[in-house]
């Protein structure tokens, strides 16, 4: 009897965290939730890799998606027509890091303060620390340019997987630490 109670408690613990019922139990949620949305990839994936919404909290996306912010988006003009802007913002808010049960989203959330609304994913404390051993020349080189270009090094980034086992830096190769 004791064992049965124990098993029930253990299993409910495992499921408690998730939203999609029993099969979620086996689904891997180690990365960030992948995004498959044509509008989003077209509008936000042309200059750089289309970042998953789960890489920043709502407050960051809201700030970034303000019309005047988009006009000066890291020095570029990323202006969008109002209807598209609202739709993209909706997509971002729906799957933002603060609503996600994926591990890397939670890690990013845990590493930023409530009062902060960072616009750079690559400068959050979590990623700053993760990336601090990488020599600068490998980042600024022509084939990568900056930490903003996640997919240049993270071969599975499109799938939301950022595992250090899947890193392959141009002109360097696999990362062993």
């Amino acid at each position, binding site marked *: 009897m*004791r064992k049965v109670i124990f098993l029930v408690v253990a299993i409910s613990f495992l499921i408690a965290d998730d939203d999609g019922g029993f099969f979620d139990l086996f689904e891997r949620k180690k990365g960030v939730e992948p995004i498959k949305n044509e509008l989003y990839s077209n509008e936000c994936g042309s200059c750089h890799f289309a970042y998953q919404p789960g890489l920043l909290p709502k407050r960051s996306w809201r700030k970034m998606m303000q019309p005047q912010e988009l006009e000066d988006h890291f020095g570029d003009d990323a202006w969008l027509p109002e209807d598209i802007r609202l739709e993209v913002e909706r997509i971002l808010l729906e799957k933002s890091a603060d609503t996600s049960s994926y591990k890397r989203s939670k*890690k990013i959330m*845990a590493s930023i303060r409530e009062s902060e609304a960072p616009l750079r994913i690559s400068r959050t404390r979590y990623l700053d620390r993760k990336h601090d051993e990488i020599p600068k020349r490998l980042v600024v080189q022509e084939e990568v340019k900056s930490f903003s270009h996640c997919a240049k090094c993270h071969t599975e980034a499109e799938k939301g997987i950022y595992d250090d086992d899947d890193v392959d830096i141009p002109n360097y190769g696999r990362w062993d630490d």
Partner: protein
Amino acid sequence: MRNIVQIVTALVLLAFPLLANEKEIEEQILNPPASFTENDLHQYLGFGAVATGILAGTLYRPNSGTDYETHEKMANLATALAVGAVGTGLYSHLDDLNVDFGWRDPDNQHIFLGGLGALLMAYSIAEAPDGGHADAGMAGVGLMAISIKLTW
């Protein structure tokens, strides 16, 4: 038999350039996919600890004929795997412990619960066969399982 193996091997070798294009082959040679990594080792040790832990706990019924010796061996193995999981975790993932990120950080939860689980399992085999060791063992295996799920 040996002829067949040779023929198949030859065919595979011949077909290789057709199956993979030149760029892919070059890629494979320059950057072989990560094979068995430290992360994998850590993962399998953790799984192994939970699996053998569950077996140790469930196969044994005090009066049902399963012998105590098997139960004991399995519990020892489970604990050894758990200690191995904690050891490899500390060795290759210590940078994921960020005390200042607090309890919200899933890796902090994983490290705390996994470590506590292994301690409880070690306590359980140290106390065995006395009463009470079963509770510690079950709690230990349970915490390990939860810990794995948290960063799965």
